[in-house]
């Protein structure tokens, strides 16, 4: 299995408060053709971890540690070198497709920007490639002339996906890509991402807070709590045999579709005591 991304001892702190650990000592490995889900509550540091890979952290924050992508140390690269990697070798999809798209440009133009910038495509070849990409994500190619507001939420997210895979990246980072979508649309988008991952043999880093989505898409799972990784394992291990008390508690909060489960909120005080004892 080819190792695509290797993060070791990543720590993220605010510049003006270096003792406040937003992400603390996070290490993870991603391999080609595998989907790794990071799950956690808001504030667990899952999005910060993803953003730091692309060098997209706010200027108020600083990251320490090593992020190796295909053997290249990303933390040492300047902005220009990073720009050659972003969108080309690492694709990214965000939660809300409407805010990620420019409302005054056609979606075809916006997909084309990526292709021109990284592959230098122009004219008819560019047009053909845009049409091919849209077809690949299940949108009729003539919609290239549409503006974002003329598309539904699911279609916009498909456009974002077509952009992120335009240059056939080795790694796709998806930050809660289906949270803003209806369940039926969510199911379609998850299926699409899964197909693309397999076909292009990408490594996928998928951020979510929904264990249902994890069950549908993940190979491996990383559970984060207050900036730290508390447990990692395969999907089967985490979902059916969780070891860490936090993972167990988080799973106990998720309602099931059969209504058999008794919901149990997390007792943070107890968690803390348990951690101290361990």
């Amino acid at each position: 299995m080819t190792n695509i991304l290797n993060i070791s001892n990543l720590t993220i702190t605010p510049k003006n408060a270096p003792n406040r650990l937003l992400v603390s000592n996070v290490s993870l490995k991603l391999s080609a053709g595998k989907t790794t889900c990071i799950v956690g509550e808001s504030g667990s540091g899952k999005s910060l971890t993803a953003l730091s890979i692309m060098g997209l952290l706010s200027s108020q924050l600083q990251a320490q540690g090593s992020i190796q992508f295909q053997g290249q140390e990303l933390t040492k690269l300047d902005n220009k070198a990073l720009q050659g990697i972003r969108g080309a070798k690492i694709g990214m999809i965000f939660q809300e497709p409407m805010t990620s798209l420019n409302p005054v440009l056609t979606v075809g133009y916006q997909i084309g920007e990526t292709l021109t910038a990284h592959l230098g495509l122009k004219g008819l070849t560019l047009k053909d490639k845009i049409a091919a990409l849209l077809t690949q994500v299940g949108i009729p190619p003539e919609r290239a002339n549409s503006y974002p507001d003329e598309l539904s939420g699911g279609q916009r997210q498909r456009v974002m996906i077509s952009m992120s895979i335009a240059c056939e990246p080795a790694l796709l980072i998806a930050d809660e890509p289906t949270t803003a979508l209806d369940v039926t649309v969510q199911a379609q988008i998850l299926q699409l991402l899964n197909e693309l991952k397999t076909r292009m043999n990408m490594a996928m880093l998928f951020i979510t807070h929904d264990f249902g989505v994890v069950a549908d898409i993940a190979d491996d799972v990383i559970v984060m709590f207050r900036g730290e990784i508390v447990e990692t394992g395969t999907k089967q291990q985490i979902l059916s045999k969780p070891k860490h008390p936090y993972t167990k508690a988080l799973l106990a909060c998720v309602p099931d579709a059969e209504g058999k489960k008794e919901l149990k909120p997390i007792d943070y005080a107890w968690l803390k005591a348990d951690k101290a004892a361990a």
Partner: protein
Amino acid sequence: MSEIILQANNLVKTYTQRSGRFGFGSTQIKALDDVSIALKAGTTLAVVGESGSGKSTLARCLLQLHPFDSGEVLFQGQDLAKLDATSLREMRKHLQMVFQDPFASLNPRMKIGEIVGEGLLIHGLGSKAERQDKAHRMLERVGLEVADTQKYPHQFSGGQRQRIGIARALVLEPKVVVCDEPVSALDVSVQAQILLLLKALQQEMNLSYVFISHDLRVVRHIADEIVVMNKGKIVEQGAVVDVYNAPQQAYTQQLLNAIPGRKAA
């Protein structure tokens, strides 16, 4: 068989949307197309559907926050649309709402004590001391502290704000509470807390809920009966257990199949 506390008969609501070049044309969109529901006292009726299905419009029409084209809403047998402004305001203390976004639904310039006590003030219930006492007790019941009454909304987390929203709705001791996606903006851990709180309060105060949601896992846990809506129409309705175990309509089946994690489980 418990009595029906809130009933909607044949509700129709049409929106006119501008369309065509420069918006000179117009299209009629039926947000509610002959919708009838009945809420039994002390139970929870869930309304589910995708965005654009008309579920939030239904919530607003039930509370007379939106005018509708035709149909009627009966609260304890009384037609709300036929009431004059004064009697309707009087009636509103029995009909409260909990909103989706705990960030947008609390006035940032008001202290929590004022937010929770405002309903009592408007309805002229009790003396100042009594109102304050009532607001304090309600806040404590939803898991906040009396000291919190002096704080502003921004000092609270999303889950705490939702608790404040619930306290504001329940301080008037309403009979019916319409909850419009009350847990969709929250983390699963907080979601579980709020769902359990809503259930406990329902028992204690004998509340009836209309629970609007798009999350079928949440609905399975909180609701007794369910109404499935699609494009302004009711597709299917019945007891939650029956609809989940044996959906009669293809659309309901489709929604249930789309619940994430169902195939893998």
